[in-house]
């Protein structure tokens, strides 16, 4: 049994010794087992890696603090909630807000003594952090999708229902964070399980051991695949007929994470398993979760994600298990077509006559600098905005549902705070993402969020010369192979291998339907421009009209196409591993 399984088993439904740990003021940390449990509560213990070296000499423990991830189903937040997040970021966190690749808010740098207050106040704002991480179903994504906003309400509602239905039911969360000492505990009510598979009273769906590994769900409305539906465990592709959602194609078995040097770990795109009607959708989610609970690997965490379960069982027998749990068969998948997995920037207008403004936020980091008062600007907008804020799956932000009347006012603020200018960046930058990595991420091997912007500035020079400044090319960077910025479905993917060195991957599909392939291993950051420059120039001269960069590099033989996940490490060009 994997280590974490024992911890879950002993935790009494995620309680562990958290209350004791929070009370101990001699250390800013929690005990190791509890740090595994806090994840289920949306909290990661971290330490500032920039200062690790100096601390012991100064007779100080590592600079521990906590990252708190807020669950935002579908990424939709009211202006009031935005203002709260902004306030909390300044009151308890490091003064910035991180908009994640899964449409959530993250706070960094919250110290232990402020943890309970922060989580409590997040809940007061009607968000929560429960199951934002951990071996359970996490924040359910849904594309903001302005141009199809008639069905947006409907898919958004599905996202919330699934999120609520698959939330852990343990009382631990409220006991530890919400109970304000007033004695009587706040009650949370969940709709009952649908299938007659009953586990335990406290956790009817998950049971005592929860899932073998994290579990991720998305809903997407074609043609926009900005949520990268194939990168997730469970996905719903809305099938729209006469502006109504008639049902969903259900996808299973996607995921990015892998480990350098172990080929039995690999990114995998999800399979389309079948079709379900809107009223079956939640039951299907429950069934897939239960199937993974039963068949997922609990011996080896590196092999425990649903993608490996599906890979091992094969999609057909996995579908059978799901249908057995459901008690009925799924329909045949319906045709669908995705066109891109990026965001559409600037203003769009929907059929109701409302406007939506999508703004580029470098790596999703909302903050103020001397040159660019973005955070203040957004705060000012939130004070007057009547619509909503929508976090995109590409770490960007959409100011949604601006009425015609309100548009000039918002437009002025966007202008005054130079937010409009942000969208003037190159096509490469607008389609870029980087994960957090250093200094907070404990797993990073190299810089990412702090480095990608500079790298893009370098590459922009090449694009300028090649006349490709406005061409959309997806570029994504992560500090380690876990793939938090979904680098394996980027036309250009950088994955950290060590300080200042990255693996370079090329050739993913522009709409997120094909994985990329290793082009060069361990490229020094100083060499990146020299390695990619020629390919970009070649693309400028020799691409077919409308040909995407990811398709071009395959046609030109820079890399072979990756058609299925388990081939990700296969048929590399000899020079890929560094000749």
């Amino acid at each position, binding site marked *: 049994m994997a280590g974490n399984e024992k911890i879950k088993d002993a935790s009494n439904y995620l309680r562990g010794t958290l209350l004791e740990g929070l009370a101990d*003021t*001699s*250390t*800013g940390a929690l005990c190791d087992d509890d740090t595994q449990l806090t994840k289920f509560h949306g909290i990661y213990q971290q330490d500032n890696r*920039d*200062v690790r070296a*100096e*601390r*012991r*000499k*100064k*007779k*100080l*423990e590592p*600079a*521990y*603090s906590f990252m708190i991830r807020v669950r935002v189903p579908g990424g939709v937040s009211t202006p009031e909630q935005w203002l709260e997040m902004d306030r909390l970021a300044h*009151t*308890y966190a490091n003064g910035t807000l991180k908009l994640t690749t899964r449409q959530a808010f993250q706070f960094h740098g919250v*110290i*232990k*003594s*402020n943890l309970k*207050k922060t989580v409590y106040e997040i809940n007061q704002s009607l968000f929560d952090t429960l199951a934002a991480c951990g071996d359970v179903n996490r924040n359910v994504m849904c594309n903001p999708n302005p141009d199809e906003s008639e069905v947006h309400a409907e898919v958004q509602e599905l996202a919330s229902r699934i999120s609520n239905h698959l939330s852990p039911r343990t009382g631990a969360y409220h006991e530890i964070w919400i109970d304000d000492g007033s004695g009587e505990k706040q009650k949370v009510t969940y709709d009952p399980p649908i299938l007659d598979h009953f586990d335990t009273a406290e956790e009817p769906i998950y049971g005592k051991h929860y899932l073998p590994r994290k579990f991720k769900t998305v809903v997407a409305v074609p043609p926009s695949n900005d949520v990268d539906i194939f990168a997730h465990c469970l996905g719903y592709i809305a099938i729209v007929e006469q502006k109504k959602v008639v049902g969903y194609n259900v996808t299973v078995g996607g995921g990015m994470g892998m480990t350098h040097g172990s080929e039995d770990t690999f990114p995998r795109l999800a399979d389309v398993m079948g079709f379900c009607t809107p009223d079956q959708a939640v039951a299907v989610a429950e069934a897939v979760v239960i199937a993974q609970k039963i068949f997922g690997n609990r011996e080896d965490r590196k092999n425990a994600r649903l993608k490996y379960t599906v890979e091992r069982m094969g999609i057909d027998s996995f579908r059978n298990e799901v249908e057995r749990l459901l008690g009925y068969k799924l329909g045949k998948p319906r045709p669908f077509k995705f066109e891109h997995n990026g965001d559409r920037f600037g203003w769009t207008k929907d059929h109701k006559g409302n406007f939506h403004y999508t703004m580029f936020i470098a790596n999703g980091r909302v903050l103020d600098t001397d040159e660019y008062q973005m955070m203040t600007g957004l705060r000012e907008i939130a004070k007057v905005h009547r619509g909503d804020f929508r976090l995109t799956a590409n770490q960007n932000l959409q100011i949604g549902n601006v009425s015609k009347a309100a548009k000039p006012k918002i437009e002025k603020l966007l202008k005054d705070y130079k937010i409009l200018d942000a969208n003037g960046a190159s096509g490469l930058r607008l389609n870029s993402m980087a994960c957090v990595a250093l200094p907070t991420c404990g797993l990073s091997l190299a810089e990412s969020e702090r480095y990608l912007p500079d790298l893009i500035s370098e590459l922009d020079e090449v694009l300028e010369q090649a006349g490709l400044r406005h061409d959309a090319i997806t570029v994504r960077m992560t500090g380690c192979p876990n793939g938090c910025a979904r680098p394996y479905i980027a036309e250009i993917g950088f994955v950290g291998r060590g300080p200042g060195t990255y693996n370079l991957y090329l050739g993913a599909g522009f709409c997120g339907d094909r994985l990329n392939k290793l082009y060069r291993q361990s490229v020094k950051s100083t060499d990146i421009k020299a390695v990619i420059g020629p390919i970009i120039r070649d693309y400028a001269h020799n691409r077919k009209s409308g040909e995407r960069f990811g398709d071009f590099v395959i046609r030109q033989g820079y890399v072979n196409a990756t058609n299925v996940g388990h081939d990700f490490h296969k048929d590399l060009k000899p020079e890929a591993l560094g000749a």
Partner: protein
Amino acid sequence: MQIPENAPFTLEQRTKLNSILAALNPAQQTWVSGFFSGIVSSAAASTAQTATAPELTILFGTESGNSEELADRTKKLAAKYGYKSKVVNMSETDTKKLSASKNLLVIVSTWGDGDPPDTATGFYKELMGDGAAKFSNTSFSVLALGDSSYEKFCEIGKKIDRRLEELGGKRVFDRVDCDVNYEANWETWSAGALKAFPVGTSSAPQTTVVATAAAASEGFGKKNPFPAILEEKILLNGTGSAKETLHLELNLEGSGLQYEVGDALAIVPTNRDQDVEWVLLATGLDANTKLGDKTLAEAIKHDFDITSLTSRIAGKYNEIAKDTKLTALLDPENKKQFAEWSYGRQFIDLLEDFPCKTLTADSLTGLLRGMAPRLYSIASSPKAHENEVHLTIAAVRYQTHGKSRVGVASTYTADLVEKGDKIPVYVHSNKNFRLPVDPSTPIIMIGPGTGIAPFRAFVEERQAIGATGKNWLFFGDQHYSYDFLYQLEWQNFLKEGVLNRLDVAFSRDQPEKIYVQHKLLQASAEVYKWIADGACVYVCGDANRMAHDVNSALIEIIAKQGAKSAEEAEACLAEMKKAKRYQRDVY
């Protein structure tokens, strides 16, 4: 060496003696000194036998131990004059008892902003109050300890001196006010006063000057600081902190210096070159002017206080400068204006704002007081670190009147000395900050900021001697992540069970300010229980606000938990002070 003018000789005798003394080499001096003191002690002995040995009371009021040390030395000296004297602490007497004594010497320091030492407060109030007994049969003389960098210099000594006269006492020798280097003034005063009493034994010796001078040449100490090698220097605050707190480890090997936990170490700093240059620039004096065997520049760098600024030094300066604006500012009428002007200003501002070109090297150094040593609570136990002494020093840096300014000693250690360099130090013992004699007594330590220093020493000591008493520490600073001084050590002490409880208050981690006194109040019930179980309470650190706030918190706790009135609680705390169960080391 010269016979002081106030010595009891005719001019003729003095010139003769001087010419002889001048001719003596050190060896001869020591011999003569030994010889005379021999004569004296036998004289003293003989007088002692005769029942008529005059009685003398030496009363002291102290906070950090100086007055007490001088009281003890005065007693020794008095014996040589044939007195039968007893040393009395202000904390343990009242005017009624005291007024019985015929001959009274008072040695008292001034604290806070012109306040009496903590332990003397009770006595002082009574003496000043209407209920005070008459001193009609008492002859007295006062030695006032102080620091001339404070506006209210020797205030308490002055007040007591005046009050005793009001109450009918007869001043037999004029009060002497001492600055931080009080040695010479004590010698003049003690010698003068001891023979000024009506019973003054005529054969009183004048050799003490020589004797003590000779004593100085042996061993390191206040008169002869030990150049200790700096073995370790660590900035304790983590990156991101607004604070600058240093941990110093000094090597005492071969110094013969001994210390106990609770003592302080005195550092004799040097001024920074920039300050020296500023002074020379402003006065237009030549750096190379000879002053004895040093140049002016060297002299003011090492030997003089060229930073502190008070109306006293401004007054002396104006005697030369005769600046009309300054004269106005110094008018007693304008105390407030002067205080406002001088706040955050230093000696250099005086020179710049009221320039005076007639200043000479001598008149300048004549104005200045000697370099003042700074005290630092010792942060180590000699039992845990043989031959070492550790300090915890906060660098003083601030911006006032368009200049960035620094504290002399703290930044001398922060900026001017590095590992391997030597720092002149001596031990300043502090009898009023001691662990309980009984190792099984529980203790509560309250030490935010650098106030943590002596408690690191306390806990090390208690571990070393295997003390069984429980230890509870309250610490506070600005930020948990950067300013948790010695965090890893406290964690170990907790693991090893030496430290039983640790409560921390970090003021700037959350919107509302949280300080140690709040943590104390939160733990009221337990704190009271500890006190009820006989715990000693120790407070160290900032005197301006923390010490007061903690004191009120303790009163509140005793009142609430012990169902007492505020007055009763205060009395209770005063009792604890007397019993040395409530000790403070605040600055």
